């Protein structure tokens, strides 16, 4: 009984509201993915030919970057989650380092994406070029905004590790940010496979 209630308190991690955000995000991206799939079915050749113009290597590197940064977040959360008493300060110092690594990887992702966009635009491709590129640009730009927001969230969380810090009794904030970052990561994995790879 006791165990059940403590598990209930631990899961889902993070604030309740972030889970509402996550479901809404999943529905929104889900609708776009379904829209992509149906549009692709209507003109497979166009989608396949257009897909060849994408830089799959850059996309793959992006995927590795995000997955790695998610790992850093896990390390950051774990380091403060069991911190009590005297451990709290050192745990927060460690967490802030892991967070910095995650933020740096987030920034690298953003820069990488900007380079990719500029390469695409320099070829004269835009939202109106064809249905494939409309979806590609809408999905990747929308996701880009999420990574940018996530990076700002992580920066805020890192600031807090430097002030009062997180501890075993108060780790909700960092978990909330972490869960959001994992969502951004998850969305990218689906997006990458769907738009860059599947033929």
């Amino acid at each position, binding site marked *: 009984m006791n165990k059940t209630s403590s598990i209930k308190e631990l899961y889902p991690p993070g604030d309740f509201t972030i889970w509402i955000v996550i479901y809404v995000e999943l529905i929104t991206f889900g609708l*776009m993915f379904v829209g992509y799939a149906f549009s692709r079915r209507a003109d497979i050749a166009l989608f396949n030919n257009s897909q060849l113009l994408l830089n799959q290597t850059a996309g793959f590197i992006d995927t590795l970057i995000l997955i790695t940064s998610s790992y850093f977040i896990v390390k950051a959360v774990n380091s403060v989650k069991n911190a009590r008493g005297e451990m709290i300060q050192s745990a927060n110092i460690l967490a802030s380092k892991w967070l910095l690594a995650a933020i740096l990887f987030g920034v690298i992702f953003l820069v990488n994406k900007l380079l990719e966009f500029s390469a695409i635009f320099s070829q004269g491709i835009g939202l109106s070029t064809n249905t494939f590129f409309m979806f590609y640009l809408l999905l990747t730009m929308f996701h880009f905004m999420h990574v940018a927001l996530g990076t700002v969230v992580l920066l805020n969380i890192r600031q807090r590790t430097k002030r009062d810090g997180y501890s075993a009794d108060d780790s909700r904030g960092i978990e909330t940010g972490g869960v959001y970052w994992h969502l951004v990561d998850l969305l990218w994995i689906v997006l990458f496979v769907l738009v860059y790879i599947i033929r």
Partner: protein
Amino acid sequence: MKYSSQMVAKPYFIFALMLLAGEILFGLTMSIQYIYGDFAFPAIPFNVLRMVHVNLLIVLLLFGFMGSTYYLIPEEAERELWSPLLAKITFWVFLIAGVATILGYLLVPYAELAKLTMNDLWPTMGREFLEQPTITKIGIVFVVLSYLLNVTMTVLKGRKTTISIILLTGLFGLAFFFLFAFYVPDNLVMDKFFWWFVVHLWVEATWELILGALLAFVLVKLTGVDREHIDKWLYLIIAMTLIAGLAGTGHHFFFMGAPGYWLWIGSIASAAEPIPFFLMILFAYNMIKNRRIQDDNKMALTWAKGTAVVGFLGAGVWGFLHTLAPINYYTHGTQLTAAHGHLAFFGAYVMIIFTMISYAMPILRGRPHGNSAKAQKVERASFWLMVIGMIGLTLALTVAGVMQIEMQRIPDSAHAMVFMEVQAKITPVYIVRSLFGVMTLLGLLTYFYSFFVKDDKKVA
């Protein structure tokens, strides 16, 4: 009432209610014209009635928002209003400008009004909702600026709460987006873009912030739930509102000469627009369930719940019905749009003003615990009359819309019936619509009557 300057809200509330009566009367007259085409013609032709009907709506909501703000801000900021005198002057200036403009619509042909007000110097007239002469628009800017100054100064000098900051953000947005009313490009497509920047970004973005803040304020007061809890909900709701609402502007760019990608952006973003309204229902019911105080003003809570539910139905469900591009291809500009418009404006905005009035008016009239049980009973009757009246009216318009789509939009041009023929076929439904309109008017009259119900002698 904690601060005497909150009293300036009273005339705003009263005038907003008077305008609402006018709004319903003009609407009813128009609904009769749908049945008897030349009813009241040539005294008030349909196009004039329609213009007055939609303009009154905007003005009454602005009066309602202003009254609500003047009541709310001193209490949130924990200090008197920066300048009660300015609020009173603003009231009279806005009232006179508003009444003069409506009289202008009614008494002078529109082209004549344009000439009289020298529209050719800076042409801004002729767009739906924004028909006001340029001079009136400039007047509105001054009124809104003085109102914003008053409210902002009060907040800056006093306590800053999430509710007041979100309300202010909504009000600044309202003021900013109105500026697009002054720009009328020659290119029709561009013209539509800028027109929607006012209309959509008011109704489906900034006003929703105002709505959220007002609802949160009433819930804080009536339920006694921790602010921290209410603030979190409020942030969530407004974040979703802004994201879905801003991108959702795209649902107005269907089939009007804008690029095709708007079909996707508009459809997907606006499919998410009902979510904040649904959250508002969860918010209101959750707060009421966890309330820590039992306020005697039961009706204010009823209105708050009603706003969340009817707002979700009108803006969320009825909006979603025709927001996806492939459906909108057939439904664009039919009576289905009118159905959505009526229930959304009523549920989300008119009802939040009723919520504020029902909460604040008894206090402003020296009844800190709400109206007497008897008066609240009358008010409850008026609540149901208006809500059922508006839902009935909306259902009738929905049936009318579906008939119109079936006869006029779906068949190819060789088989489709023309607009006026279709309207004649829909007449029986329009009669039902008018009857529900009468019910709504009776509801409003009952509401007015509740103000005059004498206090119970026996105090519970």
